[in-house]
């Protein structure tokens, strides 16, 4: 492939394993692209070129001897900057940690990617502490959307979405507490998965809310997402939420099996009644349902609690738990937060213990409702974002549209959920869909997502931004 920057992780891993391409060649091409284009996009907080090239040379030598570390041997990855990478400071994109010391260890998810052969390119922009928004009052500028630099790229894993869409790397790590992997996936026309709660270790990731936090893979294709997740899953006894499951995680095996015979539950009321979506978003969702039906799935309407109820439970849990983490800094250094993060994090001070327990009970009921829907259907289909990404310099529009989404339900319940593109709006901005699966059944999630991707060629969507 002449355009190395659009190469998929699967293709790169295969080319490196076969001796058709050197990891050094790939890393150099990406670093060159980052140097040229990132000053206008701000995907990176820190590029670690020297370490990346050193690792590329090491993996090149190993590949030449036929020794491959794993399925991602020589494939570059970007890391959201709330996730520890040994030798680099974790800033959380905040003045609070602007001068943080280097992390002593890799986060478990980073260690697993490294063990599979991945090469860390650097640390990526995020909304402050994964909760703020696109902010201009932080030590680093906010990431922008490669589809239109005047628009935001979603968040909080903003640099991850931006960098993938810009062709800076084929894989990125994101985190998702209220939709932060799936929002940039929706805004940037990439693929982002929030796995089942407990499937991927969060050790070494700066927490936002313990019972809602997930680490997830972000890529440009479904197959890359499956490959990347497969490298990260597994029990970690030092993450209290980590689950031990005696099953295989080779999501690639069933990826191309199609949807014939599967039952898809379409959650229409999310985007029709709860938060009426932009007509182009609705058209995209209908197109997905129609396509899956034409490929042999049955599609039936299902009902869940209203989005506003999920959102309220999510915010009470999230802001109560986040307050327990940030309260000392908010008391002593409130001016070191950006305005958006400060407001959101201080909300926890105004919730009481009874609210937190009540939210937990309602969460329990909501889990029951989603589980019931997933007894009638193998996969749920619903909206992700109700609108295309708005301009980055319009705080009111951001505040309004960020809440217009259907991602938080599955942080509340812990079910796996994947967001991906349906196409582009008439303004050339990405539109999206979300698929939701049963606990630990990411295999079906990828299978359905791949069927849609194959039918609609969504993996061919790239912005024209500077080639």
């Amino acid at each position, binding site marked *: 492939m002449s355009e190395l920057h659009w190469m998929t992780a699967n293709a790169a891993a295969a080319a490196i394993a076969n001796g058709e391409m050197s990891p050094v060649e790939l890393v150099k091409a990406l670093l060159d692209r980052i140097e040229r284009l990132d000053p206008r996009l701000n995907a990176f907080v820190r590029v670690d070129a020297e370490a990346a090239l050193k690792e590329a040379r090491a993996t090149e030598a190993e590949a030449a001897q036929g020794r491959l570390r794993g399925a991602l041997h020589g494939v570059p990855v970007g890391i959201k900057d709330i996730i520890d990478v040994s030798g680099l400071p974790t800033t959380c994109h905040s003045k609070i940690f602007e001068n943080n010391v280097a992390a002593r260890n890799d986060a478990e998810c980073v260690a697993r990617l490294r063990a599979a052969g991945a090469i860390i390119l650097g640390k990526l922009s995020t909304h402050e502490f994964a909760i703020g928004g696109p902010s201009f009052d932080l030590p680093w500028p906010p990431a922008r959307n490669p589809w239109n630099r005047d628009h935001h790229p979603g968040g909080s894993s903003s640099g991850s979405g931006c960098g993938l869409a810009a062709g800076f790397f084929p894989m990125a790590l994101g985190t998702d507490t209220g939709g932060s992997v799936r929002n940039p996936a929706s805004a940037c026309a990439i693929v982002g998965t929030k796995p089942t709660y407990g499937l991927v270790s969060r050790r070494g990731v700066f927490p936002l809310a313990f019972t809602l936090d997930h680490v997830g893979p972000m890529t440009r294709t479904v197959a890359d997402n499956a490959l990347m997740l497969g490298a990260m899953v597994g029990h970690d006894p030092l993450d209290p939420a980590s689950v031990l499951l005696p099953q295989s995680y080779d999501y690639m095996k069933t990826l191309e099996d199609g949807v014939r015979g599967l039952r898809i539950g379409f959650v229409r009321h999310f985007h029709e009644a709860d938060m009426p979506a932009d007509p182009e978003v609705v058209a995209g969702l209908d197109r997905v349902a129609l396509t899956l039906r034409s490929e042999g799935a049955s599609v039936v309407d299902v009902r869940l609690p209203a989005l506003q109820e999920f959102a309220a439970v999510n915010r009470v849990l999230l802001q109560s738990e986040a307050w327990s983490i940030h309260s000392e800094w908010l008391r002593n250094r409130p001016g070191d937060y950006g305005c958006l993060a400060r407001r959101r994090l201080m909300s926890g001070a*105004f919730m009481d213990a009874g*609210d937190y327990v009540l939210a937990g009970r309602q969460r329990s009921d909501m889990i029951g409702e989603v589980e019931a829907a997933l007894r009638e259907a193998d996969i749920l289909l619903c909206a992700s974002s109700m609108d295309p990404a708005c301009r980055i310099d319009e705080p009111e529009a951001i505040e309004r549209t960020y809440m217009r989404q259907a991602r938080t339900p599955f942080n509340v319940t*812990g079910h796996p959920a994947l967001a991906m593109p349906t196409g582009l709006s008439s303004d050339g901005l990405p539109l999206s869909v979300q698929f939701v699966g049963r606990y630990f059944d990411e295999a079906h999630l990828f299978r359905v997502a791949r069927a849609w991707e194959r039918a609609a060629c969504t993996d061919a969507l790239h912005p024209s931004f500077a080639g």
Partner: protein
Amino acid sequence: MQTREGIVAVDEKMVEAIARRAGLERALEAFHDDVVAAAISAAKVTERIRQSSGTPPEPFSEPWPPMVVVRR
């Protein structure tokens, strides 16, 4: 604090008292509007979950996820 169809009226004196009890004196002094905005946001969502319970919540039902104890 009261909510009515998404409109929240907050008693600023009560907000300040709660903020002080939480140790947010510095934020009150330097970012008063942010403190009030945080209180309004909290009032909206807590009212929502209190209203959506409908019947009085079962006092013995445990929240999810259950506590997990690990030996480190």
